[in-house]
Structures are given as structure tokens and as C-alpha cells.
């Protein structure tokens, strides 16, 4: 057998499988192009890097919710609990003398993951509505806890005086936000690569199956509960990392990082982009936050009106969000082009 034939032989099962639409983890050109955009922004839009890193951080947060809600189908209205927990963990470390960013990030992930794991047992019980309320309740509990523990968290005044060391001992967190942006982008990308692997894997497939029909899964020999516990814990850990990034790059943690408003807006960003497709989380977040920035001259209350309207419109007319609508448009266009 020649080398070429051998390679072709090796590649065969994969190509066959692809033809049948099984998930592969191969990168497409569109994806590469997609990721070049934030890189280009770093060089071209240096005046907007502060907003840029906010978007990247929130995109990571939305990504974490996408695993829980978009893939595993657990509707959570309290996901900010883990974001805030990560933020306070990293913030408190920085405030009390440990300003090393990467270890702060990891510790925040660990704390959020632990909280996620512990609460997951409460969340996976019951059905949709119970879950929704339990996540909501847990979110509110965390908020109240941070509010009451003002001697640790600073309460409504927020946690300030967070001091960060240089990243890798080299890059200082500058006022222009260059380091913050690059740092956030790399962390987001690494998390995205991880999430991408995860959803293309058998584990990811099983999460989608749980979302589609949780009662059938046990008949295939799968424990729905243990799958959801893992998914929820991973989601919490990623949210914790996002929170820690925010604390480290802004050197401040506000009580609102735990609030219901943040959880709810996150859901909005995710469904705006399209839940259950990873890129939807990033695109939805970017659009939402750019629009918010643009309209920031408006009273925030009116901004809330437009979010509300947007939600209603998405639910009634644009299921699947932007990417969902784009998919349908593509499919319609192909059907038209074919005959």
C-alpha cells in the first residue's frame, strides 16, 4: 500500500462519519476567520479595548451558560451566582496580597466548581420549573449572602483595592487595557476550544440527548443525574473563570456581579445569538454589548424596554436566535438554488 493510499484508508471512517453528520472536532475556515476578528480588533481598535475585554469576558460567561442551558437543557436563572463567586474569589485574593493572575483564575474556577457541584444536586432534581426556581433561589441566596457579608465583600459599595501583579511577571495591567484584552481573549479562546471538544464528544452528544428527551436516557443505560451534575459543575467553573477575569481586569467587584439582572441578561444574550451552538454565545454577547454601549446615552430603563421587546420578538418570530435564523435562511436559499 502506498503512503497516500494508507492515509486515504485511515481518513475513510472519518469522512464517512462526517457525511452522516456525526460531530467532528475539525476546524473550518469560517471559524478561523471568526477568531481573527477579535485579534484584528486588538491592533485596529485600540481605543475600544476596555469595552472589548468586557465583551470577551461576558462571552465566556455566556459560553458557560450555553453548556448548561443550550446543551444540557437546564434553564438557569441564577448562573450569575458562579460568576460572582469567581469574581469575589479572585478579587479577595488580589485585595489581600495575592495578585498573581493565573493562580487566581484557577482558584476562582475551583471555588465556583465546588459551589456548582454542591448545588447541582439540588438543581437536577425535579423538572423544568422546579429547576428554574431552585436556580433562581440559589442565585438570590448568594446575592443576599454577599450583601450581608459586607465586612468581607464590601457590600453595596463593592470590593475595591484589588491589586494585580504583572501577568507572567512581565505584562502590567495597563490603563489602556491592552493586557486585559489579550489576557481575556486567550482565556476565552482556551475555554472555547475546551467547550468545542466537549460538545463534539460523546459526552456532548449525551448532553444533547438529555436535553431532547431525559426520560429516554435511562433506557440506554445512562444516568441523567450524573450527566447533569457534571455539566452543571463545568458550567459553574467556566462562569467562575469569567467572573475572576472581570475582577482581575477591572480590579473591582460589584454586588451586581451576582444579581438576578445579570443572570437574566445573560440568558438574553445567549438566546439572541442562538443557544446550543457555542458561537451563538459569543455573537449574541458581542451584539448585545455593542448595542448597549451605543445606546448608553439612553436611560438604562429604556434600554431594558428594548431588551424586553427583543426577547418577545425572538421567542415569537426568531427561534434559535441569530444563528438559528441564519441557518434557516441558508437552508431556504439552498432549496431555492437547487432545482
Amino acid at each position, binding site marked *: 500500500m502506498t503512503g497516500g493510499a494508507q492515509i486515504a484508508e485511515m481518513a475513510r*471512517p*472519518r469522512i*464517512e*462519519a*462526517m*457525511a*452522516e*453528520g*456525526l*460531530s*467532528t*472536532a475539525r476546524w473550518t475556515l469560517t471559524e478561523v476567520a471568526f477568531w481573527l476578528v477579535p485579534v484584528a480588533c486588538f491592533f485596529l481598535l485600540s481605543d475600544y479595548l476596555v469595552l472589548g475585554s468586557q465583551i470577551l469576558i461576558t462571552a465566556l460567561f455566556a459560553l458557560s451558560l450555553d453548556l448548561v442551558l443550550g446543551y444540557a437543557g437546564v434553564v438557569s436563572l441564577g448562573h450569575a451566582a458562579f460568576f460572582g463567586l469567581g469574581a469575589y474569589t479572585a478579587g479577595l485574593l488580589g485585595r489581600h496580597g495575592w495578585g498573581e493572575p493565573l493562580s487566581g483564575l484557577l482558584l476562582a474556577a475551583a471555588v465556583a466548581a465546588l459551589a456548582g457541584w454542591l448545588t447541582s444536586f439540588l438543581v437536577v432534581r425535579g423538572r423544568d420549573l422546579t429547576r428554574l426556581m431552585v436556580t433562581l433561589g440559589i442565585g438570590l441566596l448568594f446575592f443576599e449572602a454577599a450583601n450581608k457579608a459586607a465586612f468581607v465583600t464590601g457590600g453595596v459599595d463593592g470590593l475595591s483595592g484589588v491589586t494585580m501583579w504583572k501577568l507572567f511577571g512581565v505584562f502590567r495591567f495597563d490603563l489602556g487595557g491592552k493586557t486585559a484584552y489579550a489576557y481575556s481573549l486567550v482565556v476565552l479562546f482556551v475555554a472555547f476550544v475546551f467547550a468545542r*471538544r*466537549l460538545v*463534539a*464528544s*460523546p*459526552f*456532548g*452528544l*449525551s448532553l*444533547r*440527548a438529555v436535553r*431532547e*428527551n431525559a*426520560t*429516554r*436516557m*435511562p*433506557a*440506554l*443505560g*445512562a*444516568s441523567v443525574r450524573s*450527566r447533569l451534575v*457534571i455539566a452543571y459543575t463545568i458550567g459553574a467553573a467556566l462562569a467562575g473563570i469569567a467572573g475572576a477575569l472581570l475582577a482581575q481586569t477591572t480590579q473591582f467587584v460589584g454586588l451586581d456581579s451576582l444579581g438576578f439582572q445579570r443572570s437574566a441578561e445573560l440568558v438574553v444574550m445567549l438566546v439572541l445569538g442562538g443557544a446550543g451552538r457555542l458561537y451563538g454565545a459569543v455573537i449574541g454577547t458581542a451584539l448585545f454589548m455593542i448595542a448597549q454601549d451605543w445606546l448608553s446615552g439612553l436611560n438604562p430603563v429604556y434600554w431594558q424596554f428594548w431588551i424586553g421587546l427583543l426577547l418577545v420578538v425572538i421567542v415569537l418570530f426568531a427561534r434559535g436566535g441569530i444563528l438559528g435564523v441564519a441557518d434557516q435562511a441558508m437552508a431556504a436559499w439552498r432549496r431555492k438554488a437547487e432545482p
Partner: protein
Amino acid sequence: MSAVALRAAGLNKTWGGFVANRDVSLELAVGERHALIGPNGAGKTTFINLLTGVLTPTAGDVYVGEENVTRLAQHERVARGMTRTYQITSLFPSLTVLESVVLAILEREGLATNWWKSVAQHSGAAREAKDLLERLHLGAEAGKPTKSLAYGKQRLVEIALALATKPKILLLDEPAAGIPAAQSAEVFEVIAGLPRDVTILFIEHDMQIVFRFAERVSVLVAGAMLMQGTPDEVANDARVKQVYLGEAPHD
């Protein structure tokens, strides 16, 4: 006496005052093909739910082989080699047919918690899934979302999912419900063609099919076991005739 694959010992299920299963006992020998019949609402599906662990019995026990599995969860019983299909089709609507079956295979192999390799890289599972789908005449549908299939095809996917777990004990709740007679015979040919050591309990209303494929038959009426026997014994039993035809029993 041959080895026992599955045993139900005095199963009871009540909801409030309503008794859906009353002291139902049943023993299936390894490799037996057994039909469960009875009028609508007799409690047949409830019985399967008790065997598989979807429902917890109010009293009684379930044994797989020698092992008492009454306290085991449904997925743990699947790991012991027992699975079922659903009377009301219960699939994964937006997953493709192939994805669904591949998932069932990966679950069986304990590979479904793998998170670092893509599904496509598990080419062994994909190949096995395609073979299975070919056997069930679903080859052409493999890449389609399950929800886009016609009802009859979905019933076949229902069976494919169960077969993909390579069960030792297979419980089929009206596998051919709602599909045309010609196709339902086809479904049962596939079932009959399973390896001889697979134990099968199937619920079916069509008596011709029951008599053709079953070695033994149990009749469930109003939650209780009316009788068990060979197809001939059941066909000639006065009480069964009364239940099905409303005839008075001849003394």
C-alpha cells in the same frame, strides 16, 4: 428446568385507591419469547415500568437472573442487560437517527463520558450503528433528524435504540403499534431473528402475531394475571375468550 432470566415476584402498584398491578408474578426462561396480552388499561405498560424501574412497586420484587434489582435505578438495570421500548414513541427529536444509535452504543460501551475525542472518531461505534440500521431498513435515514422520519420509521428507531444496548432481556411495549400490518410482520421478523439467548417479553394486541412469535403467553386483566400458558392453551381458555369476546364461560 432452564435458567431463569427474569422473574417478577408478586408485583403490586397502586395509585391512591386504584390498583394498576395486583400480585403479578412472571418467570421468563433464558431465551424465551413471551407475549403479554390483555385489554386496554389492563396494566401491561405499568408492569413493564415496574420491571424496568421506571416505577417503584408498592410491593413485590424483580430479579434479573439471581439478583434482586428492585432497588436499582432504571439505568443500572440496563447495565444488567435489560432494556425496553416504549409504546408511545420516545426518541431524541433533533438528533439524527445515526447519532441516536451511536449514543446508545457508546453508552453500552461506557464511552459516553469521553469528552476529549469527537463522536466521529469513535468509528467502531459508527460502523456498528450503521450495520444495525441497515438490518432495520433504516440505512437511508441514518443522517436525517429523527423528527423528520415517518411514524413507521420512528417505531423502527425505537427498536434500534433498544437493540443497540445489546440486551439480554428485551421488553417490547407494542413495538408495532400504529404501523401497517405488512410492516409490523417485518418488525417481528427482525425481533424473531435476534440471537436465541435473548429473552423477549412483548406486548401485542394482534393475536395472529402473538400466536406466531410467542412460545408462551400471559394474560393480564384488570391489573391481575388471569392465566399463563402456551398460545394454544390461552386460545382455548374460556376465561380468556370471555375477556376478549365477552362470551360467557362454558361450564
